């Protein structure tokens, strides 16, 4: 009666693996039209291109397809989890191609590290707010090369000089001659690909900087957009997995009799990750798991609760750690200070809790694994799956789907939920597609959290309140140690993500010493939207504010006095203050706080206005100023900062994952509270005009909101909140 979902958008497991050789064949030998990519000066690939008879001196990667139906397909190498990169990369191509926005369609690229690697990572993956920054030239060149080939094809067809050919809004013309891209696609496919196509200058932009509408709005407002949770394939089984309630626990014994008796349950298997229940429907898989009786072996489990961890971390903060920065002599400066501020800050574990819980569909058949999932680190996901199933990474085909949020959760160094799915596939030996589904309880209890951190800060002040020395210890789990990202992120034992935002503070502090202790704890740590900056910005920006208050100095003016060598910080701070009306008194009962922070090479300042209502802070308005380089899509930048502010605000007000005897206390959104509609402040975002290369925007809106609100709370109540969330650390009335 009802049509099932349209599967034509997916590549079947038997479909052509999209490697470069096939692309060249498609481009040159078939009637499919023009398939093209951007120039990349890579040694091996260059040699391969030469072998293919491509004498252009460049290698062309498949980022753009132009088909006779006049559709421009942009192959998006990054995951879109809402941050808008599919629209962003399409904008870059449309700009240089002079396409019409209505003919542009984003499509996620297949997993192929050579073609689609993140140029900053070396692997195919999305994260660190790098998607636009690493693709900026690559995707523009793809569009420019395609445009040049269309022009050449048109000139040849019409017998005119290429210089006379114009392109605008998807139409190629010269004098009385005119053709659509679609009409020229086949001819263009046989044109030589320009080695170094000319790019537009900023004054020629028609799309960049102009906020063209998102390309995913219609499908996301009609219920038509398909996420992993929605994939239904013939014969597909749905799996749930019972995991140890404690991190590190293993299965001791299983009684699956009752589970197997549940109607729809077809199999129960033990895997390296727990006990899987496979069923013909999602609900049967959930119900079946509820009926499992599993005894867990906790001999290797972490039995500690949050209180014990905090006590241990505080004790570690008494001891010297690994040095992340040492400038001048902070210890000596503190010894001769007139006043020393000493403060401990405690930040809880945080779950990402994207609206779509984790899930993955996998089919292993004829030696090839096909995945349908919102893959964020395709190369890692390929490697992990291949290792478990005993095949080659290139035999793992990934259909990257639109992801229902991530905030870091899907970019996992060990591909946890994909590995779980592969484990189930292997244990069952089945060739049907299997969809592993996490429930919300699995998500909140399942680990991969922003780690618990303790900061101990000692600041020595002179007799006029000037900063003489700053001593800072950070205690918590390293996210990167022991992962494939260790070599890139960890130096001399110091994980850059643990200390970013402190060790590289822009404030002019002459004696600064920063140390870190890497702790071990059961809950696996993971990057959480803005990573280390989630806690470091809070500490730096509340402490600077406290020092300004002690000196009775204006918080904006005091910061500016310490930022003389950092004009981009200073500029956003001034802009936010100006737009917030900082120089005018706030309304009665309204208190203001400010914070400024750099993350992912972007600069954001935020002014928060709060009232105290029913003994709690109510954030009414936030004014943000942003410098993220050239603004590709200003409206999307605003959306990301609005969303980042809400995301960070919910965390500082409410969110925490706590443990008792090693078991997570929270289970769903009743215990793990996030920001709700009535708590969303009015947010204004102002973008600083810039010609600098574009930098990150998915994450940089998050770090300043916590300290801006905390500083407003201090202005209004005198309380400096140092235990997060505010629900725990702020006691009023």
């Amino acid at each position, binding site marked *: 009666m009802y049509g099932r979902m349209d599967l034509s958008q997916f590549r079947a497991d038997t479909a052509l693996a999209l490697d470069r050789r096939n692309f060249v064949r498609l481009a040159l030998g078939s009637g499919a039209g023009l398939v093209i990519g951007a120039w990349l000066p890579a040694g091996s690939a260059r040699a391969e291109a030469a072998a293919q008879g491509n004498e252009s001196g460049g290698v062309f990667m498949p980022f753009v397809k132009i088909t006779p139906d006049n559709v421009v397909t942009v192959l998006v190498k990054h995951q879109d989890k809402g941050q808008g990169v599919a629209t962003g990369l399409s904008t870059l191509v449309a700009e240089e191609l002079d396409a019409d926005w209505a003919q542009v369609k984003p499509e996620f690229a297949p997993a192929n590290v050579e073609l689609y690697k993140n140029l900053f990572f070396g692997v195919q993956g999305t994260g660190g707010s790098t998607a636009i920054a690493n693709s900026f030239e690559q995707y523009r060149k793809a569009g420019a090369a395609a445009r040049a080939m269309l022009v050449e094809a048109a000139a040849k067809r019409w017998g005119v000089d290429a210089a006379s050919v114009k392109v605008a809004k998807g139409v190629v013309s010269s004098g009385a001659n005119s053709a659509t891209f679609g009409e020229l696609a086949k001819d263009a496919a046989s044109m030589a690909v320009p080695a170094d196509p000319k790019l537009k200058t900023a004054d020629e932009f028609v799309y960049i900087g102009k906020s063209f509408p998102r390309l995913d709005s219609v499908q996301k407002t009609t219920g038509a957009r398909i996420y992993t949770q929605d994939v239904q394939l013939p014969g597909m089984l749905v799996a749930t997995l019972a995991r140890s309630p404690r991190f590190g626990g293993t299965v001791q014994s299983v009684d699956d009799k009752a589970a197997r008796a549940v109607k729809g349950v077809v199999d129960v298997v033990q895997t390296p990750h727990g006990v899987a229940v496979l069923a013909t*429907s999602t609900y049967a898989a959930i119900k079946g798991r509820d009926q499992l009786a599993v005894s867990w072996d906790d001999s290797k489990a972490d039995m500690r609760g949050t209180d014990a961890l905090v006590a241990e971390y505080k004790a570690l903060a008494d001891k010297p750690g690994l040095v992340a920065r040492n400038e001048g002599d902070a210890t000596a400066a503190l010894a001769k200070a007139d006043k020393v501020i000493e403060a401990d800050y405690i930040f809880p574990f945080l779950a990402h809790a994207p609206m779509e819980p984790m899930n993955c569909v996998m089919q292993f058949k004829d030696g090839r694994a096909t995945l349908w999932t919102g893959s964020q680190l395709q190369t890692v996901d390929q490697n992990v799956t291949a290792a478990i199933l005993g095949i080659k990474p290139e035999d793992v085909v990934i259909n990257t789907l639109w992801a229902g949020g991530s905030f870091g959760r899907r970019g996992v160094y060990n591909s946890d939920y994909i590995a779980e799915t592969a484990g189930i596939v292997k244990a069952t030996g089945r060739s049907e597609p299997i969809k592993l589904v996490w429930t919300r309880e699995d998500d909140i209890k399942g680990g991969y959290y922003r780690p618990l951190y303790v900061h101990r800060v000692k600041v020595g002040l002179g007799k006029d309140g000037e900063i003489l020395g700053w001593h800072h210890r950070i205690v918590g789990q390293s996210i990167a140690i022991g992962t494939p990202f260790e070599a890139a992120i960890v130096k001399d034992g110091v994980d850059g993500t643990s200390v970013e935002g402190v060790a590289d503070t822009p404030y002019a502090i002459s004696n600064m010493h920063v140390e870190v202790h890497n702790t071990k704890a059961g809950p696996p740590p993971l990057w959480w939207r803005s990573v280390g900056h989630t806690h470091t910005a809070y500490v730096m920006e509340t402490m600077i504010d406290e020092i300004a208050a002690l000196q009775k100095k204006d918080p904006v003016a005091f910061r500016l006095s310490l930022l003389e060598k950092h004009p981009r910080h200073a500029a956003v701070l001034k802009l936010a203050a100006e737009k917030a009306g900082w120089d005018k008194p706030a309304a009665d009962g309204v208190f203001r706080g400010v914070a400024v922070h750099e993350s992912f090479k972007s600069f954001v300042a935020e002014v928060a206005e709060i009232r105290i209502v029913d003994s709690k802070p109510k954030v009414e308005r936030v004014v943000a100023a942003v410098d993220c380089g050239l603004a590709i899509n200003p409206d999307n930048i605003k*959306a990301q900062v609005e*969303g980042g502010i809400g995301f960070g605000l919910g965390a500082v007000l409410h969110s925490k994952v706590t443990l008792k005897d090693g078991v997570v206390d929270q289970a769903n*959104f009743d215990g793990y509270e996030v920001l709700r509609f009535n708590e969303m402040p009015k947010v204004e975002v102002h973008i600083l005009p810039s010609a600098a290369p574009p930098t990150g925007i998915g994450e940089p809106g998050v770090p300043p909101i916590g300290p801006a609100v905390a500083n407003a709370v201090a202005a209004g109540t005198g309380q400096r909140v140092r235990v997060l969330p505010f629900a725990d650390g702020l006691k009023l009335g």
Partner: protein
Amino acid sequence: MAKFQLNGREVTVASEDDTPLLWVVRDELGLIGSKFGCGAAQCGACTMYLEGQPIRSCVTAVSDVDGKSVTTIEGLSGPVAEAVRAAWQKLDVVQCGYCQSGQIMAATALLSETAAPTDDDIDSAMSGNICRCNTYQRIRTAIHTASETLKG
């Protein structure tokens, strides 16, 4: 074995009586626009209408809708729904989009009852629907925009 009207058509389903309506509609009937977010009436991603009123389909047993009419995002139509969708698209409300079926169902229900909602009305109607991308500000603006459109 329940029988009900789904988006105006009669359906008879084989799912067990205790199966939540959400899973019946998604898994058995193949309409995937209503989303699973929490399974506990905490987030609103699964919002459907039962006899025109918004419900959390993740905690509504299919036996409880026997003989009644159910509407999902796929069947949501009429001038209010059109105005809501148009406002959502005009303002580019969506980010990941996973919660937006539920948001649109909740917003359309609000505007169907209250043609010109205040901010407090919107808070009351929408605070049961979580958006982890925190698109709340644009949702609020879009509801006001749709309300203006409907005024004509």
